[in-house]
C-alpha cells in the first residue's frame, strides 16, 4: 500500500510524472543510439568540423579527447555532456524544491507535522523519495541505452553505461539537494527553484569559460560540471575519486536542510 509512509506517499504523488519521464527517457535514449550509424558514416567530416570549433564549445561537449566516431565519444558528445544531465537536473530541482516547500505552500504541512513524527524524519523520507525517483529515471535511461547499443551494434559495456548514467544522476541530484536545502531555509518553492537554476547556469558557465580563460582556471574545481565532465566514466568507468565532490555536496546540503527545517518557523 502506497500510503504506508511519507516516503511511499511522495513517490505515489509523482507516479504519473515518473511514468511519463521514464517513457520519454527510454525513447530518447533509444533514439540517441539509433542515430549513431548515420553519424559514424560521416565521422570524417564531423571530426574536421569539431577541430575547427572554438575550444570552449568543444569543452562544452565533453572535451577534445572524445572521438565522435567511437560509440563512447558519440554518446558523450551527444547525450551525456548536455542533454541527459539537463533533463535529470530539471527533474531533481523540481522534486527538491517542492518536497517541503510544496506542502508548506499548499498548507498541508501543519497537518502532516501534527503526527508524532519528528521533522528530520519527514525530511529524510522525502529525501529518500527523491533518491527513489532519480534511481527509477536512471534505470530507465540505462535500459533505453542498453537496448539501443544492442540494437545498433555499439561496442560499450553495460557497466560503463551504468557508470555514466549514474554519474549524470549524481551531478543532477546534487543540484536537487541544494534546491531542497534552499526550500528548507526559506519555505519558498519558486525562490529555491530560481536560485538553484541560476547556480546550474553559473557553474556551467564557469566550467566552460575556465577552459579558455586562464584566470578562471583555478576556480574551475568549484564547478560540479568540471568534476562531471572530466571523469568520462563511459570510457574509464566510475572511480570513487570522481564522486567525492558530489557525495560531499549532497551530504553538506542535506545537513543544511535538516538543520534549517528543524529550526524554522513554518508558514501557515
Amino acid at each position, binding site marked *: 500500500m502506497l500510503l504506508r509512509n511519507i516516503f511511499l506517499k511522495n513517490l505515489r*504523488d509523482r507516479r504519473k510524472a515518473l511514468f511519463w519521464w521514464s517513457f520519454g527517457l527510454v525513447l530518447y535514449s533509444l533514439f540517441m543510439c539509433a542515430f549513431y550509424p548515420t553519424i559514424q558514416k560521416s565521422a570524417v567530416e564531423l571530426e574536421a568540423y569539431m577541430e575547427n570549433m572554438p575550444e570552449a564549445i568543444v569543452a562544452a561537449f565533453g572535451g577534445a579527447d572524445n572521438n565522435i566516431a567511437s560509440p563512447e565519444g558519440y554518446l558523450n558528445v551527444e547525450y551525456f555532456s548536455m542533454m541527459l544531465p539537463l533533463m535529470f537536473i530539471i527533474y531533481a530541482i523540481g522534486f527538491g524544491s517542492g518536497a517541503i516547500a510544496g506542502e508548506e505552500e499548499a498548507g498541508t504541512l501543519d497537518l502532516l507535522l501534527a503526527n*508524532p513524527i519528528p521533522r528530520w524524519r519527514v525530511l529524510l523520507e522525502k529525501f529518500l523519495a527523491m533518491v527513489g525517483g532519480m534511481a527509477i529515471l536512471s534505470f530507465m535511461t540505462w535500459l533505453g541505452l542498453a537496448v539501443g547499443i544492442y540494437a545498433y551494434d555499439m561496442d560499450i559495456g553495460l557497466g560503463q553505461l551504468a557508470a555514466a548514467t549514474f554519474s549524470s544522476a549524481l551531478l543532477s541530484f546534487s543540484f536537487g539537494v541544494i534546491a531542497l536545502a534552499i526550500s528548507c531555509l526559506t519555505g519558498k518553492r519558486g525562490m529555491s527553484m530560481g536560485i538553484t537554476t541560476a547556480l546550474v547556469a553559473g557553474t556551467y558557465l564557469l566550467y566552460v569559460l575556465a577552459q579558455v580563460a586562464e584566470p578562471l582556471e583555478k576556480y574551475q574545481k568549484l564547478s560540479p560540471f568540471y568534476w562531471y565532465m572530466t571523469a568520462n566514466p563511459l570510457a574509464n568507468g566510475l572511480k570513487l575519486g570522481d564522486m567525492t565532490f558530489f557525495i560531499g555536496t549532497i551530504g553538506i546540503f542535506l545537513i543544511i536542510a535538516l538543520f534549517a527545517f528543524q529550526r524554522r518557523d513554518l508558514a501557515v
Partner: protein
Amino acid sequence: MSAVICTEGLTKYYGKTLGVADLNLEVKKGEVFGYLGPNGAGKTTTIRTLLDFIHPTRGRATIFGLDTHRDGVKIKKQVGYLPGELELYKNIKGGEFLRHFAYLRGGVDWKYVQELAERLDFDMSKPIRSLSSGNKHKAGLIQALMHKPELLILDEPTVGLDPLMQQEFYRIANEAKKQGQTLFISSHILPEVERICDRVGFIRRGKLIKVEEVLDLKEHAFRQIEIHFANPVSKEEFENLSVVKDVRVEDSVLRFTVAGPLDAVVKTAAKFEVINIISHEPNLEDIFLTYYGGDENAAS
C-alpha cells in the same frame, strides 16, 4: 495532577508584529477550555506554538508536563489537532487520506474511523479534490479524533460547518469530554463557547484578558432583547427591573439590554399581549468593552 496545557510567559513576535504576549495559561485535565477572541487576537499563534510549528520568542509551554519543543513527538501521540486553515492532499480520496494518517500514527482502530465517518455523514470514497469545504472539514475532524487522543486542540472547529453539522460537532465534543478527553477549542463565537466549554479565556490583541468559568459568565451575560407587543407599552414598567438597562420604546416595540436571568422580564412582559421576542447575542467587541474595558490599556 498537573495541568494538561501550561504556558509560562509565552510570547511570540513575528518580526515586529505581536502574535501573543506573556501568555500564562493553564488548562486542566478533562475540561473543555474555550479560547475566545476576535480575528487576529493570537489564537492560531498560540495553538501553532503549542504544536511546535513556530517557536516562541520568549517563555515556554508544556503539554502533559512535557516541553512542547523538546518532547513534541511524544506529546503529539496524545494530541488531536484541527488547523484553522485546513488544507488536505487533493490528489487522494478522503478515505485514503485517513488511512495515510492512521499509518503515520502507527495504526488506529479503523472501526472507530468508520463510525465517525458515518456520524458526520462523510463519504470516504470521494476524491478530496471534489469535496466541499464542509466535507473537507469533516475529514479534518475525523483525523483529529481517530486515535482517541487525551487532548484535542481545535482551531475554530465549527467555521464552515452547516448548522446541522455544528450540532453534531457539539455532540462529539461533549462525548469526548465524557470520555475524559481534554479539549482546547478556539473560537470567535461566544454562544458556541458558552454552550460547550467549562472555562473561557478571553484573548485580544495578543493578551489573555481574563479566564472565567462559563457558569459565572452566563450569570452576567448580557443580551439585547426586542419585544414586539400587540399594543403600545410604557417603559416605566420595565425600567424598574434590576436586570434591565437602556430601555427604549418605539410604539409597541420595546428594546433593552439585559444582564442576568430573564425571569422578571418575561413575567412583566406577560401582562401584555406579546407578538414576538427577539434576542441578539452581543458581539465580542461589546463584551470586551463592557466587562473588560478596564484592561483595554494593558491589551494595546
